[in-house]
């Protein structure tokens, strides 16, 4: 019996585990380590209309149970992604969620319009929450009206369902979620990184060349859980949860909070085999906890336990 299959808008997942955007490139490198076919889906690196080099290095710094990154959305640009990366990924039976970014609404529209027509792209992830770029990025993710408008614009051109990636760096996450839901979002992905910083003991200066960076890893898990708990009760669209997932137990905690699938980011650096490990361990853990299917876990922190699989579609 399959205990892990999940259906979400546009996505027919054999399991709800996928690498998070930016932590897995376009799959090639991890494809050398294991068979990517085992993944539920793949969230590929943010794509912008033109190629971007991103920020100067150092781009990463370590923190207690976490890390900061300021990659700055480095990517080879839309053309290259369409011509090279996506066709390469076509050999796998894995739905691709294309993460799209830009500095202005037109950028999102450009990328969404074209990339959503690639045959293996089954959904878009609208990155309105990158803390590491000067323009666009996070500003789209902190003002509900702006977030709603960019969602509407992308929905208007996209051939596939649109998931909006929320930033945790806001006073009111529910308001943001409801705004993008009103803008037509088919789902949410949350959370992106928290804005943070580390200073060098000797120089006193920031370790990251970009000064600030995005905090990810287990340190932020309690914030992610809290936000998903709040948002999942306030919207009707499904949530793909992320933020500090390292183990199968963490996955279950995200489902309990209200997620219907999860993404694994930073953990891929600590253990490049973390996704296959979690996928293997989940059914065992579910059985031990007394569940027949992972969807039974969704929203258990707040629901009355009658209604399971609320986003199983």
């Amino acid at each position: 019996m399959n205990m892990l299959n999940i259906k979400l808008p546009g996505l027919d997942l054999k399991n709800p585990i996928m690498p998070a955007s930016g932590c897995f490139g376009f799959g090639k490198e991890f494809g050398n380590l294991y068979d990517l076919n085992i993944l539920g889906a793949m969230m590929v690196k943010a794509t912008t209309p033109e190629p971007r080099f991103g920020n100067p290095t150092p781009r990463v710094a370590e923190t207690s149970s976490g890390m900061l990154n300021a990659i700055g959305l480095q990517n080879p640009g839309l053309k290259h992604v369409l011509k090279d990366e996506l066709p390469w990924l076509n050999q796998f039976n894995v739905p691709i969620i294309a993460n799209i970014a830009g500095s202005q609404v037109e950028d999102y529209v450009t990328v969404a319009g074209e990339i959503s027509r690639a045959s293996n792209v089954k959904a878009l992830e609208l990155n309105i929450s990158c803390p590491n770029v000067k323009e666009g990025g996070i500003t789209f993710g902190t003002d509900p009206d702006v977030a709603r408008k960019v969602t509407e614009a992308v929905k208007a051109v996209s051939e596939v369902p649109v998931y909006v990636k929320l930033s945790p760096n806001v006073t009111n996450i529910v308001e943001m979620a409801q705004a993008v839901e009103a803008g037509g979002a088919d789902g949410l992905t949350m959370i992106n990184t928290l804005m943070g910083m580390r200073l060098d003991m000797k120089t006193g200066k920031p370790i990251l060349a970009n000064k600030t960076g995005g905090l990810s890893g287990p340190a932020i898990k309690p914030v992610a859980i809290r936000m998903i708990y709040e948002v999942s009760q306030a919207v009707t669209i499904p949530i793909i949860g992320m933020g500090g997932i390292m183990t199968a137990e963490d996955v279950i905690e995200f489902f309990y909070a209200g997620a219907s699938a999860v993404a694994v980011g930073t953990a891929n650096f600590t253990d490049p085999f973390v996704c296959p490990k979690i996928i293997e361990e989940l059914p065992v853990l579910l059985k031990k906890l007394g569940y027949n299917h992972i969807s039974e876990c969704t929203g258990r922190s707040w629901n009355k336990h009658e209604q399971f699989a609320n986003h199983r579609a």
Partner: protein
Amino acid sequence: MIKNEAMKIVSQQEIAASIYELTLSGSLVSEMNQPGQFVHIKTGNGYEPLLRRPISISSIDKENNTFTMVYRAEGKGTSLLSQETNDTEIDVLGPLGNGFTPEAAISGGTTLLVGGGIGVPPLYELSKRLTKLGVNVIHVLGFQNAATVFYEEKFQALGETYITTVDGSHGTKGFVTDVIDKLSDSYTTIFACGPTPMLRALESAYKETKEVFLSLEERMGCGIGACFACVCHTAEDPTGFHYKKVCSDGPVFRAGEVVL
């Protein structure tokens, strides 16, 4: 192929001030082919430190299925690693990256190996390979002070060896370049690993006249080319979007290939 293995500690000892030599055994060794490649090590057994630590392979012993690293215990991760004892297994990912190509040195000629501090270790396997190929090697190795010097005799056994220390407490006082400037320039090739200022100095002085290969360092996330943490600009497009990844395209580059 890149593998992930819990490798056994064969030995670990402090060979100079805060400098540890760690020998591990396991089947991953059979994948190691090139000097200058590195491994990515998980230290501690929780989420702190969260990231792996990149450490160069300093010698490979295929017969015994072991390899050796030399590292400085400084921050959280390396300090934890230095406390591990013989019973423990170490989580190693590797071998990673593209290392030095001994074949680039003209057999029978002379090659200069330049190392600075913890940039010295990968030169040891390289030097062993070169001497085996019949290449004449000269080592110029720079350290902070006498207490941190390591592997002097090992390098001496392979070829002419000059030591420099910043404070003059051992060998020549000063930097590696102070020695190199005075060497007869009979060598055709330079292989170097060490701090970026050292690499820059070598590049600008010898890029035109010698074959120069430099091993770079950068803060890493994944270590395998997936996260874009460790990129550098290419020399041809120094402000554009073309790039190389230190972890997977490097860490060794030909001088002039990337912007240091």
